[in-house]
Every structure is written in C-alpha cells, then in structure tokens.
C-alpha cells in the first residue's frame, strides 16, 4: 500500500516550483495550454502575454482545404457560458504550415496542432502533411467538433469510428509524436471511447469538447444561431469536464489526460489536475481575459504551494487517493493521524 505524504511545512522557494508535466514522450514546462479554437495560432495572444512562457499553444483545428465556416450569427452568450457555431473556419493545412506553424516555430512556442477532417482519409492526409513539415510537439485529433454538417461526422460519438480515425492519424504520423484524441462529452460512456482510442494508438485524450446546445430568441422566436445548434463552452460545463476526467482517470490510470472545459482560475485548473488531468487547456476564458492562460498558470502554482505540494506531478489524480491513506506531516516532522481535527492542508 502506498502512503501519500502531504507536507504542511515550508514550500519550495518562489523560483523553483516544479510545474513540469509529461504527456507521453512530451515534457512541458507547465501544464497550462490554450484550448483549440480559442487561441487561433497564438499570434494575437502574444500581445497580452508571452506565449512561450506557458505550457504550449493548441492551435485551432486545421483541415485539408480552406474553409469558410458557417454563416453568422455564430455565437450566443448563455449563463456562465456561450454557444458557438463557427464551423471550423480556417485557411487549410498548407497555409497553416507556411504561415501559422512557421510563426510559432520562430517564436519558440511549444505547439500542439489540432487537426480535423470530414473523413478518415482527410485526417490521414492532414497528418501526413504535418509529418513532412515537422516543427510541432504533438497532435490533437478533433473527432468531436459539434459544428459539422452531419452528426455522423462527430466521430467521437462512437468507439469504432473514433478508433478508426486515430488509427489513420497514427499510421500517417511519426511514431514519436504524441497523439491526443479530443473527446465529446455527448456520449453514453466516455470511458468506452477513451479506451477505444487508447487501444487504437492515441497517446492520450483531451477532454472535453463542447456540448451540443441551442438557444431560441424569444423576440424573433427563431434559433439565435444561423447553424441552429452550437457547442456550449465556459464555466457552465466545468463540472461535466471534471466528471469526464475523473471517470477516464479511474478506468485508465496511466493514460495522459489534457483537461479542459470552463477553466477560469487556477483553482479550476487545480480541480482538473486533482481529478486526473496531466495538463489543462484554457479556452472560453481567453475571450473574457486575453491574459488568462498566464494568469491561471500563476494562480495554479500558488494553489499548489498553498496546499503544500512541491510539484505539479504530486497533485495529479490526488483526489483519487483513499482518504484513509492520507497522513499529515506537521512542521515538527512528526506524523499525525488523519483523524486529528487540526489538519490544515486546505488553506485559502
């Protein structure tokens, strides 16, 4: 039986806090990433914080050909969230490689490239072009965008289609490149999908994509979005994200998880880490606070220090521990039983 030791004593000095995290073969200096579709390709955000100082940039999903996206209105604010129906507007992979990825490389940012496709073949072709170009750290495979023409294209709704896409991307990618499957929470059993993509060659999973939602304007009495339905994001969906991370971590103890869904503060990020996330993507909060990823990174570090953690790694999946195994070590170095009432490792 392993014993978890939580020190309530002195934390490591300011400059040396260890935020490093491991996503398969990829080591990042920080677990805080931007969420795909909320940071474009990093360039605009570089105005508001140093994009090389966070874990990395997850770029907006790129497809094989240029794509106009859906008609407007594409957005509706909802309680503690928003619906979007962008429809994967983008310049196509060739332009992305020449312009966006080239800029990220020059800038020295760690880059996770998100890819999308209408068919397994398209996913494979995009991955193949990436392999030739190089210059990125990992691939996130967006098999769960709800804003596609056909719900049948939300591959992440089924274990077999999810696995098929991941196999194709794996076959067309460098063996050393970590591949993350981005999953939809709009499924009966997300663990089944996570297990399936994991067996199909995914290094890990990114959870969660937006949930399919809808808003009707009660003045016009018509759907607000031109696309009728859209993806719900923001703090409103965070408990769902935490639940999905928890379930996957419980079932698959060693699969790297990138957690996302409504992270607004360092405390929110910590919640996902405790549930089992090895990294956290910040999405909709960027729209409210363009400096959010950097702020959240600093806040997360402080939250970890406050709880006596000496590194991020110690906190990953910490909520899964059996409480009876927790032992508190006080400043005198003596071990105290957890039944003692004066424990103080949750300090605000």
């Amino acid at each position, binding site marked *: 039986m392993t014993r978890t030791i939580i020190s309530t004593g002195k934390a490591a000095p300011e400059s040396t806090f260890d935020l490093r995290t491991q996503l398969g073969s990829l080591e990042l200096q920080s677990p805080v990433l931007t969420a795909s579709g909320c940071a474009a390709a990093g360039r605009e*955000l570089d105005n*508001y914080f140093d994009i090389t100082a966070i874990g990395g940039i997850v770029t907006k999903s790129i497809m094989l050909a240029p794509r106009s996206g859906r008609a407007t209105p*594409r957005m509706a604010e909802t309680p503690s969230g928003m619906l979007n129906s962008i429809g994967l507007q983008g310049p196509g992979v060739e332009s992305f490689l020449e312009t966006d990825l080239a800029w990220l490389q020059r800038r020295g940012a760690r880059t996770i490239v998100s890819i999308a496709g209408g068919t397994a073949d398209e996913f494979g072709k995009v991955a193949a072009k990436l392999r030739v170009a190089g210059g990125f750290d990992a691939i996130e495979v967006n098999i769960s965008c709800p804003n596609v023409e056909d719900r049948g294209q939300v591959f992440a709704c089924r274990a077999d289609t999810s696995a098929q896409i991941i196999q194709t991307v794996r076959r067309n990618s460098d063996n050393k490149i970590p591949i993350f499957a981005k999953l939809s929470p709009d499924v009966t059993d997300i663990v089944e999908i996570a297990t399936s993509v994991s067996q199909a060659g995914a290094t890990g999973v990114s959870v969660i994509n937006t949930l399919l939602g809808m808003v009707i304007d009660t003045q016009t009495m018509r759907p607000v979005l031109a696309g009728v339905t859209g993806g719900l994001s923001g703090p409103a969906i965070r408990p769902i994200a935490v639940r999905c991370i928890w379930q996957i971590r419980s079932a698959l103890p060693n699969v790297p998880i990138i957690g996302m869904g409504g992270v607004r503060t360092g405390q929110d990020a910590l919640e996902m880490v405790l549930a089992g996330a090895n990294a956290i993507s910040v999405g909709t909060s960027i729209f409210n606070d363009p400096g959010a990823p950097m702020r959240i990174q600093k806040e997360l570090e402080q939250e970890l220090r406050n709880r006596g953690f000496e590194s991020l790694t110690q906190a990953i999946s910490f909520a899964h521990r059996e409480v009876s195994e927790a032992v508190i070590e006080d400043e005198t170095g003596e071990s105290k039983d957890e039944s003692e009432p004066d424990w103080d490792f949750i300090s605000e």
Partner: protein
Amino acid sequence: MSAGASEGANSGAIQVNGEVLDVQRTGKYFLMSVTAPGITERARPGQFVTVSMGGEESSMVLRRSFAIQGVQARGMYGGTLDFVVSPVGKGSQWLTKLRRHDPVNLVGPLGKPFTLPTKPVTCVLVGGGYGAAPLIMLAQALRERGCRVDTIIGASTEEKLYGGLELKRVSTSLTLATEDGTAGIRGRVTDCLIDTLNSSKVDVVYACGPMPMLASVAEECTMRKIFSQCSVEESMACGIGVCMTCVLPVIGEDGVTRMLRSCVEGPVFRGDRVRWADIGTIPEGTWGGERLRS
C-alpha cells in the same frame, strides 16, 4: 511586452484596469467616461475597446465592445476615454449602473481605425443612432488636417439621436434627420447623403451605424465612384481576433470573397468591399465555402 508582440495582429492593444469617472444619460443612451491608462495614448478614430461585464464572479463570460468616442490623453486622472452605451441587454444595463470610482476592465484600442486623407479634402460623415459616437473623434482628426467635414446624423426619433452638440462643434456643417420628424429633417440619413452627393463634390464618405444604413451609404458611394469607409457593428465574443465569431463576407483585392473578422480586419471596411446583401450568409464563391454548401 513579449518579443514577438510586434508581429501580433493587434499590436498595441493592452488590458488595463480602469475606473469609472462619469456616467451621463443622453437621450436613450449613456455616455461613459473611464480612466484607461495606456489605451488613450494609442487610440485612433474608429477603434474600439472591450469591457468585461458583471464583476469577477459574473455569469456573463463575454466582453462587450464599444466604439471610442474620444480620448483625453492628459488631465488630472491621466488618460481618460469616452464611449457610449445603448442599454439594451443585460451586460450594457449592468455597465450603465456603475458609478464613479467603480472598477472597469478594458482591452484596447482594438481594430483597424478609419484611414485619414493626407490632403485637406471634403468629407461627409454619416452616423445612425449611437453610431455617431466614433464620428466625433474622427471629425476632430479630419478638421485638424484641414478637411471640410459635413456631418449627417439620424435616428428613428429624436431621443435616439446621438452626439449632435459635439458634432456641431467639430463639423463644418451638421444635418439632423429623424424618421418621425421629431428633430431635423423628416427622413433618413441616406436621403440627406444622396442630396449632398448630388449637389456638391465629395471626396470621401465615412459612416457608422446599423448595417442597412451602411449598406445604403456604401451603395450610393460605390455607384458614384466615391471612396467610402464603413464601421460595422457585428456581434463579437473576443474582440481580439481569436474566436472567428464576428465575420462577414468581404471582397479582397484579388476579387475573392473571404469571411473576415470585424474585430481585427475591421471594424472599418471599404464600403465597396463588403458584400452587404450577403451578410449572414456564406455567399457563392466564398473562399473555402464550397464544402459547406455541398
């Protein structure tokens, strides 16, 4: 600021915590004056700021954008900035209830400004409703360059007119129009614009207001081969170019229509470039549009 900032799409925009100095009711609208250190010095006519809504624990996750009406770069409060709010939604109503010394979080200045003529030419400014606000700062800049500035503002009714006093002060001439005749000429701003374009030599037309007004202004100008610049109001989520929400179909120099972001590629567009009738659609032939229609 980071090393790559100069390459950023919004270089120059910053996020600051400001403070409310004054909230003043004017007709159906509210004029807000806030401190915005660092933004005021950079702001140019036609640019906008975004403001976060509802405080730290707000359930409103999106910022609202407001055209900059004017700036005072110096003064006892440092830089201050004015913008107008039409309190039609939950966020804007919250904003207008703020009082002196309340904190406001601002990002700006954002967007492409109006381009200004290098020569002292004749300009016509057309504003609809609170769309007149950015024309105040623009008119000042044009007059400083020796331009003639004939301003036309209009609204459905008198209390929806905005900026009449300020615009009268900075314009060479000011014409008012209301659809119900409660102030100025009974009719639309475009009727007044057509009269002006027919009776005098105009070099450039600047416009800000509702989309149908901008569409008419652009059409009248394009027909007469007069250069027009229109500032659009599109619903935005981020205001900084990352969310792809505020797009509209715009014809590029290569003749190809693309869905461009009003926040970074606008909000000021050439009137003859926007496909006004096709806003809200992906028109035939749009770059990358084939697949969505198939």
